[in-house]
């Protein structure tokens, strides 16, 4: 086991910030190249006209997941040292619903809004100001919602652990699901394009 490199003290925290900046640059380039700096493209996901969000996101998840799985099987990466956000089921479900509604209303998610700001989108600047306001409200309300925030605690738990399946089998299921989703997305886009074509005539 040699990785995660930082956990094996190959470099210190100061160096990690330079790495953070470099990885951020690559992240920003990928998001911009994907068209995620534009709210109209992101929002079209929810009208089935352009399924880029789903395609990019699931391809990225599958790529990183397969890479990690492979590197752990060959003994390079210790999966147990990779940070897992703890699961608090109910607040995550409620937070996810609020975030989903906010996504369609605002047109961006936090990461994509940064790229949109960097490429000159005024609505993204306003969106980020709104996000700061939302975080501030959350912070001010925190003492009264702290109990809810910490409710439904399940610890750091993975899908394989929760469903009592092997890691490799869940990886396989996610790949299958992604392929199904890609096929559905391609089919849906063609349907919507055909419909749009008919309406024009």
């Amino acid at each position, binding site marked *: 086991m040699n*990785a995660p*490199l*930082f956990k094996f003290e190959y470099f210190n*925290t100061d160096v*990690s*910030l330079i790495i*953070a*900046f470099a*990885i*951020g640059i*690559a992240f*920003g*380039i*990928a998001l*911009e190249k*994907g068209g995620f*700096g534009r709210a109209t493209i992101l929002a079209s996901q*929810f009208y089935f006209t352009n399924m880029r969000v789903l*395609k*990019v*996101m699931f*391809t990225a998840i*599958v790529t*990183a997941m397969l890479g990690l799985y492979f590197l752990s099987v060959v003994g390079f990466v210790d999966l147990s*040292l*990779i940070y897992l*956000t703890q*699961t608090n089921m109910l607040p995550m479900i*409620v*937070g*996810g619903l*609020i*975030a*989903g*509604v*906010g996504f*369609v*209303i*605002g*047109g*961006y*998610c936090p990461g994509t809004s940064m*790229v949109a700001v*960097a490429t*000159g*989108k*005024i609505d993204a600047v*306003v969106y980020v100001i*709104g*996000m*700061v306001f939302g*975080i501030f*409200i959350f*912070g001010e309300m925190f*003492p009264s919602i*702290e109990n809810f925030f910490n409710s439904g605690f*399940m610890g750091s738990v*993975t899908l394989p652990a929760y469903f009592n399946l092997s*890691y490799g089998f869940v990886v396989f299921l*996610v790949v299958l699901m992604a392929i199904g989703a890609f096929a559905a997305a391609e089919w849906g886009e063609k349907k919507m394009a055909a419909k749009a074509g008919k309406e024009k005539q």
Partner: protein
Amino acid sequence: MISLTKILTHAFEKDESHVHIEMKEKPYSNPYLVGVGLGLVLLAAFVIMGRGLGASGALSTAVAVTVNKIAPEHTSQNNFYKEYIGDENTNPLMDWLIFQTLGVLVGGFISGIISHRVKKGIEKGPRISSKMRLIYAFVGGGLLGYGAKLARGCMSGQALSGGAVLNLGSWAFMMMVFAGGYAAAYFMRRQWI
């Protein structure tokens, strides 16, 4: 005088058309290729640092530090702010997510410049005014900020990073984001289509 205006207008038009050809936007890349690229960036973060990508965390630190500057008494009573401020031995701004998010701004700008896609404007559908669009942008941003904090992360930290490490809560979050998005899409259709 009239001829001068004509010449100027002509020159300007010519110049603009020239600029237009030069600055033609390049089309966006193939989504599956971008996905592989993004996945490799995420994999690099896991292998090098042992953690995934994030976005909302940097803003949370910024909010917490600002509130702490104005009212330190107030933040010391609040576990949310306290977590982002940390103890006196660390500077909360020397943080992985802050530097990573600065990188996203730089990377997005570089990629946009190369492909001639850096252009001042407002993203919206044809049936909504710019003013309404900006109001929605603020409201949506506010909801995202609030929701992401409640869920301990946003699309980057939870859906993408947590998704790749098969985190149970992250997958629940991701499903709920799509559910919330599709449920609200009908009511927002005038903004986008």
